[in-house]
């Protein structure tokens, strides 16, 4: 270690630069996926490359807030996982760095288009379709029909049985709002949101809370990403997953390199590695039911079958921009959330 240091410390300035930074190869890894997946990614990358990984797991919103707060003196190197919006936001604010990975030709087109809409400052690593899940026991106990479409949720018999997150606080719910705009057009989309509002029993703060409540029997129907609903079902809760018949929007879980990363080379190594089929297959070990972005990676057998789901052509560039987001959220605030329930 000492000799290594003397070597690179040829000039005093280089030494100063190395002061707070790494001596051995290491990587500070911000992870916004589920805990066990993060753990597995960190360990596997460490095993594959010998680079020391320091992993911190936080939700994507928390990580974004942290990267923003740290921007004067970045501490993280790479940010992996979590829904795409905060990654796009970070790119828009210049918090993340542009990088063209040699692995790009192995990826699905949606992963590349995510990158292109953000000036190559982020890239898609998995995708998951929006839908909803319901607690089959509660549905039966209340003698309710099984819903199959978005519009089914507007029926009066579901009053007080539907839960979704608040789009002001949750990326999932914002995706729902944006999906309705694209599926039904803005006017009809807002009519849908207003109709839904009368049936909603609670707007939760966190995106996956509605389906967790459904799993525990505290709520009947939860509007969430389908892989979150599958996860409840696989964990043993009586949850059924629905891919709405009208078609649906989706999220692209993303990865970005933090601008000014102290271990830029290691961050790029991780970036390339995380896009490989081998790294994306790790998802199979940890009950992650998203669709991987590498064409060669496998998808879990329990995952929602994407070929059976009608996906809309989601405009990430438009609906991910902060102006459009602010406009839609304000409109939802002013026109939907104030209505009586």
């Amino acid at each position: 270690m000492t000799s290594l240091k003397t070597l690179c410390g040829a000039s005093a300035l280089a030494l100063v630069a190395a002061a707070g930074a790494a001596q051995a190869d290491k990587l500070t890894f911000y992870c916004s996926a589920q805990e066990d997946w993060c753990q597995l990614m960190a360990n596997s990358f460490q095993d594959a490359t010998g680079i020391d990984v320091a992993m911190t797991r936080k939700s994507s919103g928390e990580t974004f807030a942290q990267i923003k707060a740290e921007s004067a003196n970045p501490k993280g190197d790479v940010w992996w996982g979590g829904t795409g919006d905060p990654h796009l936001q970070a790119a828009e604010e210049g918090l993340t760095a542009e990088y063209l990975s040699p692995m790009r030709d192995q990826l699905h087109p949606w992963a590349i288009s995510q990158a292109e809409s953000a000036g190559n400052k982020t890239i898609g690593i998995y995708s998951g379709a929006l839908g909803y899940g319901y607690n089959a026991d509660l549905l039966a106990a209340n003698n309710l029909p099984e819903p199959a479409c978005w519009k089914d949720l507007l029926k009066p018999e579901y009053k007080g049985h539907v839960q979704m997150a608040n789009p002001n606080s949750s990326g999932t719910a914002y995706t729902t709002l944006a999906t309705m705009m694209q599926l039904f057009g803005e006017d009809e989309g807002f009519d849908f949101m207003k109709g839904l509002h009368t049936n909603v029993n609670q707007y939760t703060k966190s995106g996956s809370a509605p389906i967790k409540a459904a799993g525990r029997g505290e709520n009947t129907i939860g509007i969430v990403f389908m892989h979150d609903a599958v996860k409840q079902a696989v964990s043993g809760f009586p949850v059924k997953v629905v891919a709405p018949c009208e078609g649906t929007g989706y999220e692209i879980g993303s990865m970005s390199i933090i601008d000014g990363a102290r271990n830029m080379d290691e961050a790029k190594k991780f970036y390339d590695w995380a896009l490989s089929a081998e790294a994306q297959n790790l998802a199979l070990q940890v009950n992650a039911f998203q669709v991987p972005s590498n064409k060669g990676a496998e998808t879990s057998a329990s995952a929602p079958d994407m070929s059976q789901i009608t996906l809309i052509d989601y405009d990430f560039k438009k609906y991910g921009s902060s102006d459009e987001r602010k406009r839609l959220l304000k409109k939802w605030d002013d026109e939907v959330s104030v209505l009586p329930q």
Partner: protein
Amino acid sequence: MRQLASEKTTHPVLIFWIIAGWVGFFLLPWYGVEEFFAFEWLLDGYPFDTDYAPAAFLIGQGEKLWLAPMFVALLAPLWVIKKRKTDPLYAKVLILAGAFGFGWLIVQGFSIGIRGWNFDWAEAVFGDLGDRQFGMGYGALICASAFLFLFTQGIAARGAINGDVFVVSAIGGVIVIVTAFVFFPIAKMLTAAFITEEGGYSASVFAAKFFDDRLWGLGCLSGGRCGVAWNSLFLAVLVGLITTVLGLIFALVVTRSGFRYKRALRALTVLPIITPPFVIGLALILLFGLSGSVTVFFSDVFGIQPTRWLYGLPGVLIAQTLAFTPIAFLVLIGVVEGVSPSMEEAAQTLRASKWQVFKTVSLPLMRPGLANAFLLGFIESMADFGNPLVLGGNFDVLSTEIFFAIVGAQYDQGKAAVLAMVLLCFTLGAFYAQRFWLGKKSYTTVSGKGDSGVHPHMPRALSLPVLALAMIWAGFTAVVYLMIFYGSVVELWGVNNTLTFKHYITAFSFRLEEGGIRWSGAAWDSFWTTLKIAAIAAPLTAIVGLITAYLLTRQTFAGKNAFEFGTMLSFAIPGTVIGVSYILAFNVPPIEITGTGIILVVSFIFRNMPVGVRAGIASMSQLDKSLDESSLTLGANSWETFRRIILPLLRPAILAALVYSFVRAMTAISAVIFLVSAEYDMATSYIIGRVENNDYGLAIAYSTTLIFVMLSVVALMQVIVGRTEIGRRMTQSRTNV
């Protein structure tokens, strides 16, 4: 001792700080060193390597020349070392040297940062610096302390606070650390309220966010929904009142009744305070939720349609009352015990009935305790984040709104800052209301005179309902905790009720191997970190808290009110705001501590210190000043008086501060979530990750383990700190000493 120190011309304290300053400047690395206590830096080029060099060596090599002026401030005090304290020169030189050294250190720290000059105008005036500096290290820290205490000694020598060096230094020290770790970060965060989207400053941005209808709407009076601010206020007042009453009830049962199982009751009341967040909420959902056991029972037996009544104000109120009653209890028990029996006996001798004694003597003397308990309950409720998140339903409160303004889809730090200000105003209001209610009366009951009475029991008319309420509440708490324990030993809570220990095994398994134990469980890392951080933070918190309380109750100095408010500030602000403000403030030089354990310790000290302060004030306002005065008259200085007279009488307050800060460090979540790093992960953030991932069993098993660990630590603290023995006839067999 005191006589000698002031007459002779040697000043041990002065010499100590002069030497400390020199050590900081000439021996210790000036800038922060990663893993300082591994001492690898000693062999790695110290003292010449610029990473590890002390300030003097840097200057000697022609580096960082802006540090040089501080050397003058270190030299100057040597000049007065042989002078008498009464010599005007003594005070003048120390004040000037201290102020200059400290001021220079701060100014250079803020002006020159990681990218050279921090201010554009400085670059314009002085030109490009061509150099930069990182966060300060131990050398700078020791130097700064030396300058500060040289300064305070100068002030004391000029005759401030009767020339008392200890008191002046303590005031100076507390002001500096509170400024650095409370005012500075919070100010940094709150300025966000005035920043426009373009990055400029504007008051209208603030006004627009502040006068939002979502904040102040009164729709609930006419059937709609009320503003977030009113929700929070209403909830906090209710929680403050209920927890104070329940806390008083428990304190009365424990100290003034013939109830036999006091210890069990005491343990039970402390239980909620040592419970990690979310757990109480989850247990309540499992009992009273739509599919909860109690709900299902009532629906099966009485045919009552299950509803979601729990989600909203009722649920949050129940959970917060469960969680914060122990705090009121901890504050009140010291006060109730401290009320002098002589006064009560005097009233009885004057033929007052038991009820009259209680109403006109005991209760009024407990007022400082009641007021402080209410204030704490109010503030805790305002800042609580976990319970509203789990049980709030559509009942939004400020703390959750703040959290989601920062981390939610809006990323609106300005809104968070405005909401935090509203919250702060409420707290400030409660704080002044409390002061107004207490007025200028004296609540002193423990004086130097012998006081060997025994507390009378409560009047009968009071004791029956009090006991009944205490029992009901204790029973309820017990049920909630049984549920929690049960949740940790079943396969999947609420779905598959097969008994299993697998959650404990996943979290806490270990193997005996050659060369020791291998901690193979998933939770060990965060567990040890949490324990370590909490153990470091707790005593520091108690010390800072009690010294502050001592200054506030025993000393008078200019700006005392502002000082008191400042110490309460960090407690009143929700953890989320603290967390983000700490990152904003301490991620860049001069104080660069993000990603270390230090930032966690510091955040815990300043978040939990107010409880030590409150408990200390409540107890100290009962101690007669004549105790201090007689100690001082007999020749002890104020440090000795504090240590030998006041401290031993403060044991309940010390215990409260220690227990609270330890437990809080282990269970805090909202601030911690921003401050944890890969190396310093805390138990609570690990638990939250597990809850998010549906691993309820593991999360609850971890929480249950934490509860048991904390219980034993609290018991241990109780033994170490001991009880206050105010000379009273405790039992029949033991006579007053």
